[in-house]
């Protein structure tokens, strides 16, 4: 660590100069330069995968930048690791809290210091904390174990912790993602008040345009690793911001259709289910997919898409509502899936659709191991037949594996996805539910996966495509829905799709 932070208290300015970050063959950041003025709230806006998290991790020393400099308070600095970042006055508040749940606020603050005495004099520490809090415009409960605090209070405690540790530039990663709208407003208001006192500079990663308009002074937009623009929030309106985030896209060319859409194959009616935190609700009043069409559900991650998938695969119980396949009530059991021809491809196939330590042969057999050729149930495993089946699928779907007997975890991501596709797309498919199919795949694999999904659609199946990649939805879907906060907030046909409108709905603002 060369040099020290400029002495004194008060906000510092931060500047990223020409930062590039390369991971293997992927260029995550391409010559990004952003200046954050001292004592301002600066928002960093962008879609999933735009490079916001990567940029911030470079600033905090988690990654060694491939190229570029960091300037803090007009002095160029080296940040080789997070400790150096902390020493320079940079602090970060993460999406998922870093408080120890069983310790109180006081204890969390004290132990987070770089130097803690071996024996802690709690009376002194509490007195020092009380003095510190007097100078703060807000407070949080300090004598309650962190796990008993509400999410909003925890966030405030995190921010207090950063201030307590003397940080002068605060980076927040989607700070309101786990908060209710009221808590979010309160938190951001508090932050802005702090910044106005000159004590702090805030760089905030967000995808919510409403928050940018209401609480930020300046906004920088990243798209696909590049800095698209920076402007004062008062000079921009939301449609412009959305357009910068999503960029100019050519009007989606209609993809070749095999058949016209048939009758409704999949329907969700008045579906209600709790989300993963239990505090919010997924509420889908009506969603229908016809045979021979692809319905794409766009949205930023964390707005209920995972829960929607889990509802359709039977991993999440419905509180109320019905799912209908071909007009008949559908409960996701193995027999019902088989009879109705419903196939599911969850995201992150290795994590959610495969047994990593089982071999490729076994994984490819998940759908067919218990049925004979004539569809009767079987008791004895026919391992020779499974091997033949696996070799056949591997050839047809071009799965590259050292040996079909190797554990599937030894295959590359693309080949794992090919394997899961091979398994699920064989046989009669009436309804296909697929989530983020191309996540993490190289360009060739992406093209292949998309082609296969189109083939399934052209064969008359109803396809529900849930994707966090708007490009994918725009390219493939015949009808586009937008999911936000657990609800469907927008629906449009591909021909009428207005990227700006879609982007605004994705960002939570009509």
């Amino acid at each position, binding site marked *: 660590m060369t040099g020290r932070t400029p002495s004194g208290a008060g906000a510092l300015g931060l500047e990223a100069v020409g930062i590039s970050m390369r991971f293997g063959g992927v260029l995550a950041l391409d010559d990004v330069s952003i200046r954050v003025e001292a004592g301002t709230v600066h928002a960093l806006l962008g879609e999933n995968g735009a490079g916001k998290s990567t940029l911030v991790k470079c600033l905090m020393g988690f990654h060694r930048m491939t190229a570029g400099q960091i300037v803090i308070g007009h002095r160029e600095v080296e940040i080789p690791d997070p400790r150096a970042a902390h020493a320079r006055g940079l602090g970060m508040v993460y999406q998922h809290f870093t408080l120890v749940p069983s310790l109180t606020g006081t204890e969390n603050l004290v132990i987070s210091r770089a130097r803690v005495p071996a024996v802690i004099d709690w009376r002194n520490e509490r007195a020092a904390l009380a003095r510190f809090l007097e100078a703060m415009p807000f407070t949080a409960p300090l004598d309650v174990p962190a796990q008993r605090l509400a999410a909003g209070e925890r966030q405030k405690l995190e921010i207090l912790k950063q201030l307590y540790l003397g940080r002068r530039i605060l980076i927040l990663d989607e700070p309101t993602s786990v908060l209710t709208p009221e808590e979010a407003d309160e938190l951001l208001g508090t932050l802005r008040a702090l910044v106005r006192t000159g004590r702090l500079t805030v760089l905030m990663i967000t995808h919510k345009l409403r928050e940018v308009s209401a609480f930020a002074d300046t906004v920088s937009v990243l798209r696909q690793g590049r800095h698209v623009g920076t402007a004062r929030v008062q000079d921009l309106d939301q449609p412009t911001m959305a357009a910068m985030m999503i960029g100019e896209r050519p009007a989606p060319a209609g993809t070749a259709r095999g058949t016209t859409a048939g009758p409704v194959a999949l329907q969700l009616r008045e579906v209600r289910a709790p989300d993963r935190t239990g505090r919010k609700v997924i509420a889908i009043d009506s969603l229908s997919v016809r045979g021979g069409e692809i319905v794409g559900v766009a949205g930023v991650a964390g707005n209920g898409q995972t829960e929607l998938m889990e509802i359709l695969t039977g991993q999440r119980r419905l509180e109320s509502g019905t799912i209908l396949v071909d007009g008949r009530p559908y409960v996701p059991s193995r027999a019902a899936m088989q009879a109705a021809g419903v196939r599911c491809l969850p995201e992150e196939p290795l*994590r*959610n*659709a495969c*047994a990593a330590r*089982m071999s490729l042969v076994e994984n490819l057999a998940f759908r067919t191991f*218990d049925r004979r050729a004539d569809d009767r149930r079987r008791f*004895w495993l026919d391992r020779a037949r499974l091997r033949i089946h696996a070799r056949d699928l591997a050839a047809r779907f071009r799965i590259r594996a*050292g040996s079909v007997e190797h554990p599937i975890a*030894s295959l590359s991501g693309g080949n794992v996805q090919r394997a899961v596709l091979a398994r699920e797309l064989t046989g009669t498919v009436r309804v296909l539910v697929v989530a983020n199919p191309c996540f993490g795949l190289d360009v060739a694999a992406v093209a292949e996966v998309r082609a296969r999904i189109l083939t399934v659609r052209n064969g008359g199946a109803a396809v529900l495509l849930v994707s966090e990649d708007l490009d994918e939805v725009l390219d493939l879907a015949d009808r586009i829905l937008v999911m936000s906060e657990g609800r469907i907030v927008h629906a449009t046909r591909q021909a009428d799709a207005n990227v700006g409108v879609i982007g605004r709905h994705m960002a939570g603002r009509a």
Partner: protein
Amino acid sequence: MTAAAVPGTPDAAFDRSLAAARRHGEAVIVPLGALVAGLLAFALFLGIVGRSPAEFYGLVYQAAYGSTFAWENTLARTAPLLLAALCTALPARLGMIMIGGEGAIVLGGVAAGIFAMLYPALPGVLGIGGMVAVAALAGGTWIGTIGFLRHLRGVNETIASLLMAYVAIALMNHLVEGPFRDAASLNKPSTAPLSDGFRIGTIPGLDVHWGLAIGIAACVLCWVLLERTTWGFAARIVGGNVRAAQVQGLPVGRLMVGFSVLGGACAGIAGMIEVAAVHGAANASLAAGYGYTGILIAFLARHHMLAILPVATLLAGFEAASGLVQRRMDLPDATVLVLQGMVFVALLAGEALHGRLAWFRAPGRQ
């Protein structure tokens, strides 16, 4: 290996066998290494208490495997251990860690003893068959309930099964000392001794009771069930990744409960064998600790049904030798437990190495 071998040559064949050895070797070499590490740690312990490890291990070998009589002693103890190990190994293949085999054993034993008491006149096959059935029912219900609670409410099956084992032992003691006590058993409360029709005899040619054959058959049948049937395949999918099993619509709850019942039934039969072949009546001797040793065997065998056979023989040998060795070397009765404990700790530590040793990794993406 830098340059790839030309396919079809002896080099290529060697490469393939080496690759196969690497893949499967980990499952054998790591637990073997842990076993050796545990034995070394125990040797250290012996050194500290002033005994010769060489003498200890030498005596163990003699008393366990050194003569026909020793072998018979060992094999007699292997029988209940095989079945007790299945009680842990079967649910473990589905991702449930059950350690309550002891409870299922004692309940199976007492159920068998009570059955024999209530129907003393049943002819041979019916009598023994009936005992097997009630023992399996008792043990299976016990462990099956825990599996059901785990599926329904996410109850931690490890703690629940352990605590239920204590409940089972208390229940057995109550039944044996109270309603089903044989009036003639004064010093040691016990059910009535089994009539000859209910006793299990010895295998001809080998002075070991038929329980050994039952145990071996159970291990083989469970292996066949898991590896060669669709039920077992579905169970392995649940154990491999329960989310993947759910996405496939497999009946996860039914599989969990079903295999818990099966494991408990095996342990229950172990109890019945102890009653019918060894003690001749149900009493407190049923709680001999086989259930706990079974846990260790299952883990050492990495929950592989066939690997349980050699591992159980090894640990049975230690137990068979323990009485002799401890008396000869003037060591307390708990010494063999210390040995088992050290091996178990070494094994659990070795589990952390699984998947991390580069030599064993399959070639390709990590």
